């Protein structure tokens, strides 16, 4: 329990760095606000996107079958993976069948979720993440801290040091343009030498059987069009019904994610190039189970824009790694309890329930309501320590008995006034660690009212 709180405390120990992290993300949030407010129909688009995704969830089986049939017609090979292990095995089988030794991969949170890199590396396949941020954290051997900006937690000095070690850039170089250029040269070699390319999927269009991938760097396309084999890995929830729906989602995605009007590259893959192969791997990995939880199923509407992270006052001040899962922040905190309630049971509590996430979400997921409901589930399943449970039950007993409440209130105020400071501000007083307790008045409102408005 409360692992997030501990990690957050450690993060905040370096306060200037916390402020820097907060400001970086706030900058993106502000950009997002500005571009959203330039679109008069913004709220209508969010509602449309939400309704389209509701329709998808209610008909997901049929849409997946339609998508598969169209993709097969297009000459695409379609695979189904029930879980992460099956996904990794399927990908490896495809690669092994083509004798692939070197693989380039554009950003895919699904493959992160399945730990594909580690799996393939163990099989002797070189996996190179080609999104700059992903490459940085891959070279550092750490997980992404954000789903759109995986290296948002790092300073340019740290990246300069890393590149000096791994890419032999100049010692002490920190200029982002210089470092990006170095990565460009390094990655171009990898693109040209790759035997296969993997991408994630932003949208899979049921009526056409194609997948859409959005990048700013063009790295998905560099990989896919140079390698003879292309594999697209997608969660079952990536489906949208019609090509026309892309109009809605492409207008929302980049604006929500980074405050750009659209990603630089919005790529539509329908058929392999001549003499080449295209595969799509459709992955469940717990998603169909989430679909069966009425209170939480609409978390599957997520289009992975990351806006809820950028806006979250908790995420901005605790960093993505404090959540301990591939997808951090508010959306991660409503996806993870369904995966492992014991392990991630503290995440629904890592929120002040401010609701900013729900209002920023382009598909109108009621994220903070789900956090609230997950809390109820955690407590019901016995996820609270005994002391907290006793305190809560005691409070419930007291607060439904006016006389007891009045008595304890008076006693507490008296104690707070009389007890010496060191007694009040003990190590169990979490409130008092950074704050003063309220100055207790002699009279409660109730007592004042009895004295001054006795007849009402």
């Amino acid at each position: 329990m409360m692992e997030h709180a501990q990690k957050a405390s450690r993060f905040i120990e370096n306060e200037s760095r916390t402020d820097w992290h907060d400001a970086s993300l706030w900058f993106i949030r502000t950009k997002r606000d500005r571009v959203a407010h330039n679109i008069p129909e913004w709220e209508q688009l969010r509602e449309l996107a939400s309704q389209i995704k509701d329709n998808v969830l209610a008909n997901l089986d049929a849409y997946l079958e339609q998508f598969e049939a169209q993709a097969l017609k297009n000459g695409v090979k379609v695979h189904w993976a029930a879980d992460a292990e099956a996904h990794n095995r399927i990908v490896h089988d495809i690669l092994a069948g083509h004798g692939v030794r070197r693989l380039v991969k554009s950003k895919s949170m699904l493959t992160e979720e399945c730990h594909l890199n580690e799996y393939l590396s163990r099989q002797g396949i070189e996996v190179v993440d080609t999104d700059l941020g992903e490459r940085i954290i891959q070279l550092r051997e750490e997980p992404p801290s954000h789903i759109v900006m995986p290296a948002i937690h790092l300073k340019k000095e740290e990246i300069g040091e890393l590149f000096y070690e791994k890419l032999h850039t100049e010692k002490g170089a920190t200029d982002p343009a210089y470092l990006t250029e170095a990565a460009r040269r390094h990655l171009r070699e990898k693109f040209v030498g790759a035997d296969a390319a993997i991408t994630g999927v932003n949208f899979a269009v049921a009526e056409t059987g194609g997948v859409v991938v959005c990048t700013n760097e063009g790295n998905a396309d560099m990989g896919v069009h140079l390698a003879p084999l292309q594999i697209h890995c997608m969660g079952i929830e990536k489906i949208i019904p019609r090509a026309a729906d892309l109009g809605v989602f492409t207008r929302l995605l980049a604006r929500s994610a980074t405050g750009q009007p659209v990603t630089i590259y919005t790529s539509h893959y329908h058929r392999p190039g001549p003499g080449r192969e295209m595969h799509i791997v459709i992955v469940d990995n717990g998603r169909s189970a989430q679909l069966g939880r009425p209170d939480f199923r609409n978390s599957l509407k997520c289009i992975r824009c990351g806006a809820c992270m950028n806006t979250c006052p908790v995420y901005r001040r605790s960093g993505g790694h404090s959540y301990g899962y591939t997808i951090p922040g508010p959306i991660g905190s409503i996806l993870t309890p369904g995966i492992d309630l014991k392990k991630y049971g503290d995440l629904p509590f890592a929120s002040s329930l401010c609701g900013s996430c729900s209002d920023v979400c382009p598909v109108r997921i009621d994220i903070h309501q789900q956090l609230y409901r997950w809390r109820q589930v955690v407590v019901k399943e016995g996820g609270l320590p005994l002391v907290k449970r006793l305190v809560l039950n005691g409070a419930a007993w007291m607060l439904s008995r006016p006389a007891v409440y009045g008595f304890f209130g008076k006693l507490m105020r008296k104690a707070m006034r009389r007890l010496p400071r060191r007694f009040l501000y003990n190590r169990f007083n979490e409130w008092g660690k950074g704050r003063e307790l309220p100055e207790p008045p002699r009279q409660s409102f109730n007592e004042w009212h009895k004295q001054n408005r006795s007849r009402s």
Partner: protein
Amino acid sequence: MKIGLFIPCYIDQFYPQVGVATLELLEKLGCQVHYPDKQTCCGQPLANSGAESAATHIYRHFVQLFHTYDYIVAPSGSCTYHVRKHFDCIEQTGEVQHVRKHTLDLSEFLLDVLKIDALDSRFPYKVGLHQSCHGLRGLRLGPDSERVSQERSKLGALLGMVEGLELVDLKRPDECCGFGGTFAVNESVLSVKMGKDRIADHENSGVEVLTAGDMSCLMHLEGIIRRQGTGLHVKHIAEILNGVQL
């Protein structure tokens, strides 16, 4: 019109002057206000901690006390929001539905029911408005920076009726203060950091008095301000509207 006054537990115990200001303000505006003295709490501290099922007794107690009133008015966006939104887990009797529908935050009652457009109060200070999240995003007491909307700010409109009051623009007009109920103790370091950042925004913007529609946020912020010893004043909006002086 029968008005029931709901004074949330932490106001009752720690900030009775906010309850007094609310009552006096309503009385000045000609309202007959009743205060059922068996009231305790809306149950939110429990429910937000995940103990909704334990809170249902409190919900029923609340409904039993208040269902006879035309309106239930509370100087708290957060508690009002809790009653309206989260009393959905008990049986939805006529009484429960009535209470959920007619529990209003003070600002809603003043503007939407009493429809006041003037106040007899003066507060010649630079005031920073902290928009509590449950009031802003829960009750929609104003437009938030995330959504594209044309709503007016209810708290802003009320403060605009106070003579001499200068409402200060903030860098982050609606960022959470980090109180969050039990979040404040479960994640105390983070909670305090959020509060410090909020206070810094007000201080850097030249605010003399920090106000809000929710005393819970202010209890947290005031606790940090007093620990820091910077002397920023903290007043609930009801106190300012009722003509408090520093």
